[in-house]
């Protein structure tokens, strides 16, 4: 029954995807054939795509062909404005990994501290409440001004936006470790380090990983916007650059690729989450 249902859902997914591609394909065709005759001025403005009678909006076949081309040589490098999509993605992933990694290193120990001490919790709460709702991009000018390096500023913005969910979840997870588990450790005279690693960390791990999963999602959302601002490299810059080149095909491909990478990151953390979850 279960497999049957799962199988059915795959069929429906495939059908929806096919219907979407078909509608897209047809939609693009009709604009080019059934539309009113082109205003010559406009045609001149839009260049070849318009004068050859094709819609400026690429169809799924154009995107597919271009995608195959990208995938066949993802890592070529022909100067600052023409790099393989693989290189651009690698830059973005690297920045996210660095900013996120730093945030993990800060948020988890700090979250432990806050979670273990109600005093620290109260003392730091105003800062967290104040800084958490700030859009990460609002930090950008300050980062650019103080760090003076666009790449590092992007990493800083990733850091600052991924820290909050992890910090809050770690503190919450640590603070809500069941009293009886802590009492077990106390009656066994377990030292503070061993207690942190063998009792508190495993008990809070599901909550912590949930925070990490939220953070990686935010980090991946923010990196695209940040790279649009700072320029140079990265998938966000690629999108911006291709928009300036009026290559809608490449923009669509970038959207697809951003989605796929985001999904992989999310699923990776979902898997970690399942590994540390324990049934009660």
């Amino acid at each position, binding site marked *: 029954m279960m497999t049957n249902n799962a199988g059915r859902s795959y069929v429906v997914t495939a059908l929806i995807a096919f219907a979407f591609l078909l509608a897209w394909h047809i939609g693009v065709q009709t604009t080019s054939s059934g539309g009113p005759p082109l205003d010559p001025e406009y045609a001149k403005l839009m260049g070849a795509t318009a004068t050859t009678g094709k819609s400026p909006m690429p169809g799924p076949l154009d995107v597919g062909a271009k995608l195959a081309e990208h995938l066949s040589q993802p890592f070529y490098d022909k100067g600052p404005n023409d790099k393989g999509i693989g290189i651009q993605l690698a830059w973005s992933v690297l920045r996210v990994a660095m900013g996120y990694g730093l945030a993990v290193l800060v948020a988890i120990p700090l979250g432990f501290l806050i979670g273990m001490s109600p005093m620290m919790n109260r003392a730091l709460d105003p800062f967290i409440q104040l800084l958490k709702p700030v859009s990460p991009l609002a930090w950008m000018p300050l980062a650019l001004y103080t760090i003076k390096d666009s790449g590092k500023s992007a990493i800083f913005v990733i850091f600052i936006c991924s820290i909050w969910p992890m910090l809050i979840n770690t503190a919450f997870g640590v603070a809500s470790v069941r009293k*009886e*588990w802590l*009492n*077990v450790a*106390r*009656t*066994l*005279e*377990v030292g503070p380090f*061993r207690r942190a690693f*063998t*009792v508190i960390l*495993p*008990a809070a*791990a599901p909550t912590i990983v949930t925070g990490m999963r939220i953070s990686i999602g935010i980090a991946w959302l923010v990196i695209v916007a940040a790279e649009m601002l700072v320029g140079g490299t990265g998938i966000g810059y690629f999108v911006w650059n291709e928009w300036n080149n009026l290559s809608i095909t490449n923009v669509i491909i970038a959207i697809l690729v951003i989605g796929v990478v985001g999904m992989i990151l999310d699923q990776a953390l979902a898997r970690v989450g399942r590994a*540390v979850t*324990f*049934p*009660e």
Partner: protein
Amino acid sequence: MSVISLEALAKRYPKNGGGETTIFENLWLSVNKGEFVCIIGHSGCGKTTVLNSLAGLDRPTEGVIIVDEKEITGPGLDRAMIFQGHALLPWKTVMANVAFAVSSRWPKASRAEVESRAQKFIDLVGLTGSERKRPAELSGGMKQRVGIARALSIEPKIMLMDEPFSALDALTRGSLQDEVRRICRETGQTVVMITHDVDEAMYLADKVVMMTNGPGAMVAEIVQNPLPLDRDRTGMHKHPDYYALRNHLIDFLVSGSRTFRDNIPPGYDPRKPPVVRPAVAA
């Protein structure tokens, strides 16, 4: 020779809107080595508070607790607690839960030594074959067995149990009582256990501590168990003293626990509550 001595223990909590509530005060109790002591009293009289203080998990407001001639200041490996809600670590297997206790007690022991010792106690409580299971895969009775194995594995001087079997069905409870009694008699274990169940107290206890209702609970008396040491759970009701003991305990729970305060017997000394031994002849 008493291993445990509670001296002038009191516990007070600040009351909502000023003042204090006294849960109990001037509580004295001593437990001899190898003795099995049950504490009986109505809900809220402070039994858990007494036991947690003895475990070092809670601090009495006044008084001292002496274990083996030393005042205790916190939890320690000389006292093992069996918690009411089993308190197993759910991310650890049965083996790992017991091994956690063993390696806390003997931090320098090798992994093999720790595991073989843990195995010995898993076998002792009849869980051979379930070592790799996690608590979620165990029945309530099996979980409580792991808790017992964990407590026994550190060779505590004293075992403390807070209503260890109250969440179990009658059948499981019975077989676990048998096992606890067998193990404690074999090893001469000193035990303090809280229970609400009169039959459980009669079967397991050498002496039963009767606490009056709170607030301001007191130890009204200490009841010596007149039943023979080799009693068995299913046949003990045939003993001539069985009903004398049972009625005495139930009478106390029904009325004595409530009325004791208002007519304290002359000569009552909280340091030495009267010791009674209900029997047919008496």
